[in-house]
């Protein structure tokens, strides 16, 4: 089995937001519905203060609360595939926001409008692209979120190169490729020899908000230890 996870090392992250920008370009997310966000906050008391940076995107939970809520409402727009990636089908989504209400991480983003990039002018090539991946199809009044760059991972699956996910750029989420400090790693946690497995063990990376029982597939190395 392959279970794809991401590790984010907040000890290495210095808040440059390269991952946020890369995600915006790769996935065409809109400012009102970002898929990747940098949390920034201070801890401590003067003179012993610290600035903390934590990027957040979908946690691709093993037991996703968003999917449970969507299924309970009867829409079944959210799925979790065999690689552990949680995806939203925009054709099935009715925009009820039950997933928004249940996600403990505040991940699902309701996109209430699809605005033209340059209003009053011709649409750009990005906006008129016909062969856009379904996860990049922009539709008003649906919920969007990070897909672990499924449009890239899917190519690895289709070409039988799952083993290369997280190892070569074309099969690795773009946010993880651009980090200048190597604070983001992506790969298969079921492979005990993978970089993510080794990193999680060595740096004691942990999931956040475990009390919700959703079992996230994004691990964090946190300065303050586990929380």
């Amino acid at each position, binding site marked *: 089995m392959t279970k794809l996870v991401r590790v984010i090392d907040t000890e290495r992250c210095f808040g440059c937001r390269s991952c946020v920008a890369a995600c915006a370009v790769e996935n065409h997310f809109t400012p009102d519905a970002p898929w990747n966000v940098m949390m920034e906050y201070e801890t401590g008391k003067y003179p012993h203060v610290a600035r903390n940076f934590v990027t957040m995107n979908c946690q691709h939970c093993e*037991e996703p609360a968003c999917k*449970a809520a969507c299924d309970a409402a009867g829409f079944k727009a959210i799925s979790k595939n065999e690689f552990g990636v949680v995806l939203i089908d925009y054709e099935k989504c009715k925009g009820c926001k039950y997933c928004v209400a249940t996600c403990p991480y505040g991940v699902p983003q309701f996109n209430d409008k699809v605005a033209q990039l340059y209003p009053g002018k011709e649409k750009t090539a990005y906006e008129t692209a016909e062969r856009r991946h379904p996860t990049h199809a922009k539709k008003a009044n649906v919920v969007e979120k990070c897909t672990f760059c499924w449009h890239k991972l899917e190519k690895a699956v289709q070409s039988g190169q799952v083993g290369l996910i997280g190892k070569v750029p074309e099969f690795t989420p773009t946010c993880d490729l651009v980090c200048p400090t190597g604070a983001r790693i992506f790969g298969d946690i079921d492979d005990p020899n993978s970089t993510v497995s080794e990193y999680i063990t060595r740096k004691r990376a942990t999931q956040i908000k475990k009390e919700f029982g959703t079992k996230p597939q994004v691990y964090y190395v946190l300065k303050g230890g586990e929380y």
Partner: protein
Amino acid sequence: MKNLLIISLGLLAAFSIAAQAAEPKLAKPVNLEKVGKAIRSGKLYVGKTYAMPEKNRFHNIHDTGLGLPCNGCHNVGGYPDDYLFLRKAEFPLQVNDEDVGAVHRAKCLACHSKGGAGRTFYNITQK
């Protein structure tokens, strides 16, 4: 002496009744299990529209059905600075020119985890 005793008892009874009337009325406790079952079986009608705004199913269940006050779920303002929540910047939301405070999802756990009165969304078991 007998008259004095009767007057005293009368005054005591009057004060007691007045004190009872002054006590604020508390909302009738709701049996969450029963309400939850009634909603799921369709015996308690909470609307068909799955949507978040008031007067739709979500709020009908929580405020009308269960009698939860607004501040039972919504905080006054936003989330704390160090709280890891992606949509943190949205709060307090503006709805009809009013601030709608953030909802800490921990409040949902009581009913929406295994063994709770509501649908199970969180894979933990209530003790």
